[in-house]
């Protein structure tokens, strides 16, 4: 998936050109009514070339040929845009399909014997054994064992992940490979419904359904097309009354110039490309509707741990108690953490380095490490000198020191409460019967989060942090990170409640989650981004899956959604604004021969009626390929207030859309003049 194909690789362009011709099939064109009208017009002009007598179009072969060629290219350009957008998806799908090879699965039968079965014959509920080097034959849940798995085929991430039975990291995806140990997997999908199958279908665009906004926009485009069809059909008899003879080719040209071909040609490409941008970002959106909804999000619910903070608590301060000083606390803590591989332990050593406190040398060989156990709630080390060092939960250490015959310094209680009230976790440090002090463990907010939340606020999006911490801790982190609101001591059902409350106010809510107990909330949310590392239940409940399992990505997904909507709006505005200039080119051209005074309306000073009509038509055609890059890449989105954003975009695409064609048509007219 991460094998990002460049926007315009040669192979894709070649395929797209081929596709553009295949898509000329009128049955296919009917799906896009605007372009279908253009195609019908093209066919009429073609017939006029072939049978001029029948249409009274003798002697206009050259003009009709020119109109025909330009119209044909208009359609081809539109098809090309769509084919190009689809092509990128197809390339990705092809690489995924390679992953989806047929493998032999080792099915464990009821009598515990192993039978070799083709992966395509596996059914829901089968239990398979997967050993080192085997491809996992289908999506499922590990019921026994632990293994490291290479998921690069799907996520593009080369570092293997550890998966084990039980808990939230027990789901495996078909097509990934076990690279060490073994697991027993209970298959959870029937053939053809696996995650990989879904992914292929999605990136291929096979299942692409039009989104509500796209449908609404299409309705409007069809209406405009009908209005202009009416305008063109009715102008013929009316003009005839005052002696203006209009040729059918000219009327077709007028029609094609007026109907919104630019947006009509690019609309589906914009949609496909928008989905594709999400996919490229390693997020799999189950529907375009979800991406569109992302642009409308009002509220984002984020888990504190792992999303806003690193999730592992880090030592940030050594707090002495009783008669000891800070250096002593640090050094004792240092001894106790020297063999401690947990993030907390490592952070103690880092903090010492930061504070320039030397580590007391120690003969590790002869020391005895005491591992952390849930019952004792402490860890430590027994030194060769017989001294015992312990660090751990304050209660546990207090009890241990008392057992060793020591006393508890009077200020311990107060200082540990202070740390807790600031949102930190105190760890007590003791050597034999003396309690030296506390390590202030703090959950650290990821860098840049505050800025991200400020940006979201500018977009009008509210952030809510969910955490199991007590209200004090939650408040501290919330303030530090700059989120708008928080829910402390939250239980899974709290998320659902908050989502429903927000939705009742008409807001759209996005959230991320990975656990099975997140599933109902993911399903309830308008945008539910499930982590690929999460359970199958979570992935099925959400409408997007992040293959990198990075919950902060929800913020980017929102931006992509907005960008998609903006691109659609920008090109629609541009397309309609273009019509003004086209009118000034075509109306005088149509009527000037019969009504010479109409020349006044030829404000662009185009050379001849024929040249004016052809110039407008050529502009209308070439603007499509010129805008393909914009349609594919999307309009640049900088988070800012809606009113500012509107003025900016309106200026670029509205005012620009009025001016650009005046210049473009004039230039084309000059070129035509030079050629003839």
């Amino acid at each position, binding site marked *: 998936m991460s094998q990002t194909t460049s926007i315009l690789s040669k192979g894709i362009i070649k395929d797209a050109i081929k596709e553009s011709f295949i898509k000329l099939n009128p049955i296919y064109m009917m799906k896009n009514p605007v372009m279908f009208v253009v195609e019908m017009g093209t066919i009429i002009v073609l017939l006029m070339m072939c049978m001029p007598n029948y249409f009274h179009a003798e002697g206009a072969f050259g003009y009709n040929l020119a109109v025909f060629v330009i119209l044909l290219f208009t359609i081809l350009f539109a098809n090309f845009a769509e084919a190009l957008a689809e092509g990128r998806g197809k390339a990705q799908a092809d690489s995924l399909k390679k992953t989806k090879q047929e493998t032999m699965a080792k099915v464990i039968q009821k009598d515990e014997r192993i039978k070799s079965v083709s992966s395509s014959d596996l059914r829901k509920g089968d239990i398979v054994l997967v050993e080192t080097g085997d491809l996992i034959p289908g999506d499922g849940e590990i019921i026994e064992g632990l293994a490291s798995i290479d998921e690069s085929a799907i996520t593009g991430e080369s570092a293997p992940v550890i998966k084990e039975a039980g808990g939230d990291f027990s789901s495996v995806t078909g097509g990934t490979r076990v690279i060490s140990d073994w697991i027993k997997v209970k298959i959870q999908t029937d053939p053809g419904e696996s995650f990989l199958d879904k992914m292929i279908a999605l990136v291929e665009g096979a299942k692409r359904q039009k989104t509500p906004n796209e449908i609404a926009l299409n*309705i409007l485009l069809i*209406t405009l097309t009908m209005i202009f069809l009416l305008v063109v059909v009715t102008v013929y008899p009316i003009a005839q009354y005052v002696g203006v003879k209009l040729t059918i080719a000219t009327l077709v040209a007028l029609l094609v110039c007026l109907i919104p071909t630019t947006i009509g040609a690019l609309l589906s490409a914009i949609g496909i490309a928008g989905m594709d941008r999400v996919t490229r970002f390693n997020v799999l959106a189950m529907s375009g509707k979800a991406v569109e909804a992302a642009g409308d999000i009002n509220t984002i619910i984020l888990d504190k741990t792992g999303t806003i903070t690193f999730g592992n608590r880090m030592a940030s301060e050594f707090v002495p108690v009783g008669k000891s000083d800070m250096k002593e606390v640090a050094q004792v803590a240092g001894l106790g953490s020297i063999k401690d591989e947990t993030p907390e332990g490592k952070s103690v050593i880092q903090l010492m380095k930061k504070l320039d406190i030397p580590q007391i040398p120690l003969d590790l060989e002869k020391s005895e490490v005491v591992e952390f156990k849930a019952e004792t709630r402490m860890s430590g080390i027994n030194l060769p000198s017989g001294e015992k060092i312990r660090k751990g939960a304050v209660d546990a250490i207090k009890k241990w020191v008392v057992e060793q015959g020591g006393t508890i310094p009077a200020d311990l209680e107060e200082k540990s409460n202070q740390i807790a009230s600031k949102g930190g976790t105190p760890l007590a440090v003791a050597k034999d019967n003396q309690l030296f002090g506390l390590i202030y463990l703090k959950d650290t907010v990821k860098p840049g989060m505050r800025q991200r939340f400020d940006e979201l606020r500018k977009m*009008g999006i509210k952030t809510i942090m969910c955490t199991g911490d007590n209200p004090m801790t939650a408040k501290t982190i919330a303030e530090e990170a700059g989120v708008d609101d928080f829910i402390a001591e939250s239980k899974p059902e709290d998320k659902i409640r908050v989502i429903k409350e927000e939705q009742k106010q008409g807001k759209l809510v996005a959230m991320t989650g990975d656990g099975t107990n997140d599933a109902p909330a993911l399903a309830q949310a308008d945008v539910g981004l499930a982590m690929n590392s999460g359970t199958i239940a979570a992935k099925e409940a959400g409408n997007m899956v992040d293959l990198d399992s990075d919950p902060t990505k929800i913020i980017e997904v929102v931006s992509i959604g907005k960008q998609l909507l903006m691109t659609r709006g920008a090109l629609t505005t541009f397309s309609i604004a273009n019509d003004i200039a086209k009118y000034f080119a075509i109306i005088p051209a149509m009527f000037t021969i019969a009504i010479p005074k109409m020349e006044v309306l030829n404000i662009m000073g185009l050379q001849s009626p024929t040249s004016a009509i052809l110039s407008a038509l050529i502009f209308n055609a070439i603007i499509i390929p010129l805008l393909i890059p914009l349609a594919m890449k999307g309009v640049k989105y900088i988070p800012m207030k*809606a009113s500012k954003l*509107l003025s900016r975009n309106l200026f670029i695409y509205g005012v620009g859309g009025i001016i650009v064609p005046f210049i473009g048509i004039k230039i084309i007219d000059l070129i035509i003049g030079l050629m003839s």
Partner: protein
Amino acid sequence: MDILQMLVVILIVILLVKPLGTYLYHVFSNESNKTDKWFGWLERVIYKLAGFKERRHMSWKKYVVSLILMNAVLVAIGFLLFLFQGSLILNPSKIKDMEPTLAFNTIVSFMTNTNLQHYSGETGLSYFSQMAVIIMMMFTSAATGLAVAIAFIRGITSKGETIGNFFEDFTKAITRILLPLSIIMTIVLVGLKVPQTLGPTIHAATLEGNIQNITIGPVAALESIKHLGTNGGGFFGANSSHPFENPSPITNVLEIMMMWCIPASLTYTFGKFAKNQKQGWVIFSSMLILFVGFLALVYYSESQGNPALNAMGLNHYQGSMEGKEVRFGIAQSSLFTTVTTAATTGSVNNMHDTLTPLGCLVPLALMMLNLVFGGDGVGLVNMLMYAILAVFLCGLLVGRTPEFLGKKIEPKEMKLITIALLAHPFIILLPTAIAFLTELGKGAISNPGFHGISQVLYEYTSSAANNGSGFEGLGDNTSFWNISTGIVMFLGRYISMIALLGVAGSLLKKQWVPENMGTFRTDNGLFIGILVGVVLIIGALTFLPVLALGPIAEYLSIR
């Protein structure tokens, strides 16, 4: 001086918007207020007589059905009265029964608030027909329009299941707004020398010794509701240019005010319903900007005189006075023309057929847009439809799916809106083209060439916009014109009403999306610009080719 005259009138209307708009809000807000005390008794009597005990609130579909049925019954009664007016009461001038296609055209014309007149009031209608059909229809069609506007506003500004009760809104529109205002204005007009009598035509002996027939009748009563209800059908064939309908510049200004004040004030009422007064002013300002632009064009064009006459060396100091009344002059005539076509009333105080080419572009364009103030109720609804369209086109530019007043605009609304959007050009351009394809249509043109195109186009545009003003000069009392314009008026009125009430019904059920920094705002200056732009672009794109062949070509050829 001319410009000052026009500015004063505009200013008075602006000052009227708030008090009248607030009053309209109180009438329809269905919360108890002072007006209940004054009019409640009358309504209770009406409700009792009608057997209308429970005034249950209706879904949009029920509202539409009630509206259609009510209108259908009135049409049936009116049609019969026209057909047999010769033998009915109050016919001192011995007017004959009406010809069926003309009766069809006339009844549709008045029920749809169009008031296109293919008959001449003096000779075509008995007093009974004038009062029992024409004046009655003037009340009911305006009340229908007001009810639609209020129902539409309720739909887009509230959340629930109901857009009100049609019969209640309809009754209140008459008892609390149209009836009291028209009674007051009738008395004022009588004071300003407009006749009000049931006496027969006066046969006066002139100095030459000939007998002149001077038609009189209940003119003042008709005149006030004709304008307040944005109806426009004159008592006399010459409409408001007739000295009995509009004797002086003061009555002229009063008539302008009457037709303009309700459509203008409804924007304020809308703001009150939306609980955001700025929203109402945005709509008002957009309308006013378009209005002033068009007024400037017609005034400039008329005051320059007719280029063909100027070229002959004739003094054009007075401007183009052909077809205008000397007592009104260019300014009062231009203003009247602009207001009567903006507010789609259709009364005229000058002959639109003899406006200069660019001058006649103005009434045509205003009726083609049909939303610069517009007729009672429907103008606001049309403008709000364009507001939704503007939001839909530009709302995406802020990266959110479009929403108007906190409600999302989705495929269902777009489908209904496009029906309304498509209907208007369809019923103007298609019949115009058909008219030019047939001898029946072409034969009626009195002035061939580009002006002939304007004549035909004007007739259908006026019918479609339910304006009713005639370009005149077109021989339009034939079956072809009676039937075709009748159908156009009918479709012009009801298609968009039904479709847009459907939009209201659909938006009504939608959950509000709360406003925040990311919301596309529709209550600021920028949106005025967008709205005006969208109206002009969509309108211009649709009608520019025919306008180019009609008034624009005419202008260019005599320039």
